[in-house]
């Protein structure tokens, strides 16, 4: 495609009129029916003639020296083709990592967390591979554990990564701190003197898992040129590629990646899981190798959301104005860096929430520990902060005797507000309006479980069909929260997306083909790309090319960025294709009609028309046998790094906001919670597909509910081992736990963004959790500083 990559000049600023199936319509997902009927091919469904099955052997302890590994028995098993350990790695490079390459492909003499990969087996049957892996004998000598801030920073603390020399190691106060970001603005001590009330709180956020339903899986096929073709479910093909090729000792062009069916991601596929392992086994055996994790292994196969301890102090004047904020956020990054540095940047820069606070003293750090590695998950550092600052807002309002919504509105940021980082919010920030909207909704009727005489409808009660109450002990609570999230990659990262668009005539009709490397993980990018191409090119037929590395990077499907970034790239390339088509038209037909020379020309219904609607030509007649095929990169406006001492800098691209009102019913005697309704309002700038928008908002809201009342990976502090790696004991909400979620969508355009749109996927995950917590606090009168809430916390039976 490289020969087609050329700059064709800045596309003219023409606004295409509406085309059928274009942006703004709720067109249906192309993969929707297949997924609902079970026919969609996920990455775990792949099959190849003569393929082998890979199995990973993982550490059974959290921190140990590997004294010896004996693979002889495993290797001797019939059906086993290969057993690999650290010693078999083919290249100089033996580590990988998103930002810091600190993660060994296979453990090198030391394991740093429970479930770390130590050895690989390829066999002709998955069961044989599993049994062979079980026959590998590893002698561990256990080492002292680092499990929290105290043990990480103790005088005699073992260093998780001794001798680290990454770009953060120079500025962190201790080698067991991955990254530290302070933000200082104004003068907190002076501002504190103006405060009539001061509230303080210490909050704990549990370790949440992405819990995507399609486990990690992929297929690596060795090729004749000594390279490998990898079919895999991931969030960012090119980021994987950059980490895979060096450890295989191959140039990037010899590792060809194609996205296969992704069963959810939520951040959990940003890091490498089985990609390198499958390639290593395929290259070692010269056979295709498939790896599929089961659910148990999946809990060890990807990073989780950082658990956090957050300490906050706020002050306010008696008329309700926040004077200052001090906070300290300690994120547990686990054994490897993953996305920890960026999570720290987000947690600190968004720690004040969507409020005007001029005087702040903020510190966020991420620790290296022997706990499971933590990294990206929907909301990315902003979630933990929102849980804490929203609890603080309620405490402040209560202390001032003010209504919690009015108090928030009084302090709400708006366009023009200056962030703690010094960045000016330069597009709509309707924080007060979002709160107004959720508050104005009528409340759901009380005691909906009461039926006409025939007892209680337990489905409407806490406990549901488990029949634990017929109304006894049940108290209603209502809570509010609002949050702020950044969109796109921040802190000076060169964030871009690439789109290739080909316009040609097939069977007499103009057809657009959109080719990107965007990972469709369920967010609906493939739907939106087709809509954009229809709008910009006036065609009906759009083909979405499979996502692969034969086209430039699309960046990650994360940070609420894909519609903005790869959607923006598709728009951008389509505009260039349109220009090229019009140029071709002028060349071929220009002399037939004066409008070719001067009028603004649009593409509509397969035709080139003037803005007055006069048809100049069929697109097909202009193109004839030629194809216009362009591949262009698209960038958002640049951002800057945060100053390492003051945190100042225009670090973010765009902000996104959502508010929630939670209505809960709590069985106060049993400590069980029924979330009755989670009303939400969100500004999306421009809804390219309202059906998808609402789906994203409802899904994000539900994920936030999960970590409010049930979702937590429980790590034993004595052993740093995961205690609940299964869906039996790691609970996610079922449809019975999911309340009615009325959604109010605002469309206030961001002039800097394509179509004015605002990234939207993460914001609902932020405020949903603190809204539920606030409602439970109101129902019970308890302080509740830890999420998720367990029945024990509500009944004094911990």
């Amino acid at each position, binding site marked *: 495609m490289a020969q087609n990559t050329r700059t064709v000049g800045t596309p003219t600023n023409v606004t295409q009129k509406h085309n059928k199936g274009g942006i703004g319509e709720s067109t249906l997902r192309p993969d929707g029916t297949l997924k609902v009927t079970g026919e969609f091919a996920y990455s775990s469904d792949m099959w190849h003639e003569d393929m082998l099955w890979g199995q990973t052997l993982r550490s059974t302890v959290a921190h140990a020296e590997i004294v010896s590994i004996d693979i002889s028995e495993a290797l001797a098993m019939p059906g086993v083709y290969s057993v690999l350990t650290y010693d078999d790695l083919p290249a100089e490079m033996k580590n990988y990592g998103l930002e810091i390459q600190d993660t060994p492909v296979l453990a090198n003499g030391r394991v740093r967390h429970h479930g770390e990969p130590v050895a690989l087996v390829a066999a002709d049957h998955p069961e044989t591979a599993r049994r062979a892996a079980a026959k590998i004998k590893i002698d561990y000598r256990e080492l002292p554990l680092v499990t929290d801030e105290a043990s990480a920073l103790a005088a005699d603390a073992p260093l998780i990564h001794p001798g680290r020399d990454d770009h953060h190691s120079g500025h962190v106060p201790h080698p067991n701190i991955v990254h530290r970001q302070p933000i200082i603005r104004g003068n907190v001590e002076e501002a504190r003197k103006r405060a009539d009330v001061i509230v303080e709180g210490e909050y704990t956020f549990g370790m949440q898992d992405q819990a995507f339903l399609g486990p990690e899986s992929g297929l690596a096929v060795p090729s004749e040129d000594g390279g490998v073709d990898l079919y895999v479910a991931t969030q960012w093909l090119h980021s994987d590629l950059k980490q895979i090729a060096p450890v295989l000792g191959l140039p990037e062009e010899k590792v060809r990646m194609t996205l296969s069916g992704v069963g959810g991601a939520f951040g959990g596929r940003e890091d490498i899981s089985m990609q390198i392992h499958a390639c290593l086994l395929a290259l070692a055996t010269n056979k295709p190798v498939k790896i599929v994790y089961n659910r148990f292994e999946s809990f060890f196969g990807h990073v989780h959301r950082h658990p956090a301890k957050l300490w906050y102090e706020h002050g306010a004047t008696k008329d309700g104005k926040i004077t200052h904020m001090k906070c300290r956020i300690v994120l547990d990054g686990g054994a490897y860096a993953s996305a920890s540095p960026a999570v720290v940047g987000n947690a600190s820069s968004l720690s004040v929430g969507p409020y005007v606070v001029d005087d702040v003293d903020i510190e966020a750090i991420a620790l290296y520990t022997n706990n499971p590695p933590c990294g990206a998950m929907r909301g990315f550092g902003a979630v933990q902060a929102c849980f804490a600052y929203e609890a603080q807002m309620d405490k402040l309002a209560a202390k001032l005797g003010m209504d919690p919504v009015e108090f928030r509105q009084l302090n709400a940021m708006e366009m023009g507000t200056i962030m703690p980082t010094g960045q000016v919010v330069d597009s709509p920030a309707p924080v007060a309006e979002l709160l107004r909207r959720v508050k104005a909704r009528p409340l759901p009727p009380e005691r909906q479980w009461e039926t006409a005489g025939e007892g209680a409808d337990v489905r409407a009660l806490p406990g549901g*069909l*488990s*029949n634990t109450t017929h109304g006894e002990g049940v108290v209603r609570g209502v809570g509010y929260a609002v949050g702020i999230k950044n969109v796109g990659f921040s802190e000076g990262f060169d964030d871009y997306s690439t789109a290739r668009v080909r316009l040609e005539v097939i069977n007499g009709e103009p057809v657009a083909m959109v080719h990107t490397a965007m990972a469709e993980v369920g967010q609906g990018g493939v739907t939106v790309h087709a809509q954009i191409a229809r709008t910009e090119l006036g065609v009906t037929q759009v083909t979405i090319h499979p996502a692969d590395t034969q086209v430039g990077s699309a960046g990650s499907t994360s940070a609420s960025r894909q519609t903005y970034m790869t959607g923006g790239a598709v728009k951008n390339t389509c505009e260039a294709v349109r220009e090229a088509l019009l140029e071709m038209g002028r060349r071929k037909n220009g002399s037939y009609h004066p409008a070719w020379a001067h009028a603004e020309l649009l593409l509509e219904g397969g035709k080139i028309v003037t803005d007055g609607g006069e048809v100049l030509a069929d697109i097909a007649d202009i193109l004839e046998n030629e194809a216009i095929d362009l591949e262009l990169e698209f960038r958002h406006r640049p951002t800057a790094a945060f100053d390492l001492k003051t945190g100042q800098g225009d670090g973010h691209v765009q902000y996104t906001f959502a508010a929630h009102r939670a209505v809960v019913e709590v069985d106060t*005697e049993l400590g069980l919670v029924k979330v009755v309704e989670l009303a939400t309002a969100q500004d999306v700038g421009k809804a390219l597909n309202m059906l998808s928008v609402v789906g994203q908002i409802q899904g994000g809201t539900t994920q936030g509910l999960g970590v409010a009342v049930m979702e937590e990976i429980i790590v034993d502090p004595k052993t740093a081992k995961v*205690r609940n790696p299964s869906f039996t*004991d790691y609970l996610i909400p079922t449809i019975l736990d999911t309340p009615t979620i009325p959604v109010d969508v605002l469309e206030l355009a961001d002039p800097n963004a394509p179509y004015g749109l605002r990234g939207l996927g993460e914001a609902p995950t932020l405020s949903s959790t603190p809204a539920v917590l606030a409602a439970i606090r109101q129902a019970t009168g308890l302080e509740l500083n830890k999420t998720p809430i367990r*029945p024990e916390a509500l009944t004094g*039976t911990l």
Partner: protein
Amino acid sequence: MDFLRPASWEEALAAKAEYPTAVPIAGGTDIMVEINFDHRRPDYLLDLGRIELLREWEVGEEVTKLGASVPYTQIMENLRATLPGLALASHTVASPQIRNRGGVGGNLGCASPAGDSHPALLAAGCEVEVESVRGSRMIPIDEFYTGVKRNALAADELIKSVHIKNATGPQQYSKVGTRNAMVIAVCGFGLALHPDTRTVRTGIGSAAPTPVRAKAAEEFLNAALEEGGFWDNGKVITPSIAKQFGELASAACNPIDDVRGTAKYRRHAVGILARRQLVWTWEQYRGTNGRSLEGAA
């Protein structure tokens, strides 16, 4: 792992006699999880899927004979009137798909304290009909659970059916989980009033090494009901009786702390459930709110 597929009950008994370590599989909703998690690798699986008589039930005068493999869905749909406690318990089992496959025989065979049907079976009163090539016998439910995931079956025996006493009064069942559906029990409680004998029976799940009855609570309540003439006068149960019943039920627990809940919470919750269920069943017995024997929900 060998897979044995007897075509008849006789063949199944013969297979179990020949391979006493064979693990019977019917719905597979428990054993398949164990196998998938690699917690268990039996040498033989004995598939009971072809044996029709295990999926049959018969409602008699006093007793319902429930085949070991009758799925929970069938119990919910067909046996609510005669076995209301078990029908309520069946409602709480996992998801519709699992309820279409799982049956009481599996719960009894695995004898996990977290099995949803145990408290209802204990409260209703029943006998488990087991058989081997040596013959058949009836094991009273009170003698069935012998330890953590252990039961009174001999190595060559299979569970054929459960003979459950038909309800003569209201029955209730509740389970606590941290999710409103599809959840393993943190603890469970069942209560059955037996006006024919003027007694009550209880069952506690997931709060002791085995499913147990709260015997002291039963004895207290039997005495209190008798003493106050409650069975005849139909008076409202006094709050102090309900409270003490709850406390005694709580005291009957011998729970552990685990990832699903603390021992303290389990004791607490069983006490609350016992108190509430006493009020529900007694109010129903008094007929004050016109509920049928089918219970709530």
